[in-house]
C-alpha cells in the first residue's frame, strides 16, 4: 500500500505495472484525475493529508478484497491538463477494485485536507462544493447506506467516475 502526497508528476503506467507484478493479481483498476479548464494551486496539511488517505485505504481494505493499492495526490501549482490524482487498486478478482477507486476519489477525508488556495480564474468558484462539512456528511451517509446493503450507491459512485458503466451494472447483477 502506497500513499504519497507530492508536488511532482506521476507515471500512471509505471504505477499500474508495479501493482501487476504479483501473480495473485487478477485485475488492476486505475483512476487518473486531471485538472480541467482552470489551473489551481493546492496546498495541504502535511501529515493530516497522508493520514486521511491512509484511513480511506484501510476502510476500503476492510470492506473489499484488495491485494495492493497506490494513491498519489499532487499539490502545488497545477494547470489544465495536468494529472492531479492517481488511484490504482489490485485485486484477485475483477470487480472489487472498481469500488475502491470510486471511494477513494469520493472520500470526504481527501477533500477535507486539500485546501484550494486561489483560482486562476473566477470560474472555479462555480464548482465549489457545498463545503467540506457538507461533503463529509454526504460521505458518511453514503457509507452508511453502503453498509445497509445499498449496492446502488456504490454503483452510482463508480459509474459516475468510471467510463464503463455497462461493466459496473454487470458487476452489480453478479453480486
Amino acid at each position, binding site marked *: 500500500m502506497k500513499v504519497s502526497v507530492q508536488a511532482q508528476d506521476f507515471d500512471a503506467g509505471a504505477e499500474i505495472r508495479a501493482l501487476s507484478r504479483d501473480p495473485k493479481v487478477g485485475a488492476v483498476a486505475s483512476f487518473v484525475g486531471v485538472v480541467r479548464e482552470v489551473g489551481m494551486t493546492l496546498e495541504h496539511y502535511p501529515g493530516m493529508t497522508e493520514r486521511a488517505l491512509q484511513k480511506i485505504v484501510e476502510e476500503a481494505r476492510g470492506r473489499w478484497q484488495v491485494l495492493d493499492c497506490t494513491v498519489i495526490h499532487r499539490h502545488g501549482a497545477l494547470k489544465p491538463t495536468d494529472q492531479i490524482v492517481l488511484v490504482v487498486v489490485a485485486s484477485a478478482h475483477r470487480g472489487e477494485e472498481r469500488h475502491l477507486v470510486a471511494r477513494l476519489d469520493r472520500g470526504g477525508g481527501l477533500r477535507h485536507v486539500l*485546501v*484550494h488556495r486561489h483560482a486562476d480564474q473566477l470560474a472555479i468558484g462555480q464548482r465549489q462544493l457545498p463545503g467540506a462539512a457538507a461533503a463529509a456528511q454526504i460521505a458518511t451517509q453514503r457509507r452508511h447506506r453502503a453498509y445497509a446493503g445499498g449496492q446502488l450507491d456504490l454503483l452510482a459512485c463508480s459509474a459516475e467516475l468510471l467510463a464503463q458503466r455497462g461493466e459496473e451494472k454487470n458487476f452489480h447483477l453478479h453480486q
Partner: protein
Amino acid sequence: VKVKVLFFAALREQLGTAGEEIELPSGVGTVAALRGHLRGRGGAWQAALADGKLVRMAVNQDMAQPSAAIKAGDEVAFFPPVTGG
C-alpha cells in the same frame, strides 16, 4: 496551557502568519473558544474568523467540531472550506 495553532491557505494570507504557539487563557477549552479568543485580537483576526465565516478546524490532524476539547500540547489547525472540480 500552551497549544500550537496553524493557519492554511487564504486564512494564512489574511492573518499574515502560518501559525504560532499560544498560551490559552483560562476558560478557553474548546476549538470554538479558541477561535473566539483569536477573533478578539480584532482587525484581520476579527474579519477572518468572524462567526459567519466557514472555517474548518482540526485538532491533532483530525477534523474537529467546534465543541471539541483542546488541551496542552495540542495542534489546532484552521483552514477555509475546500473547493473541488
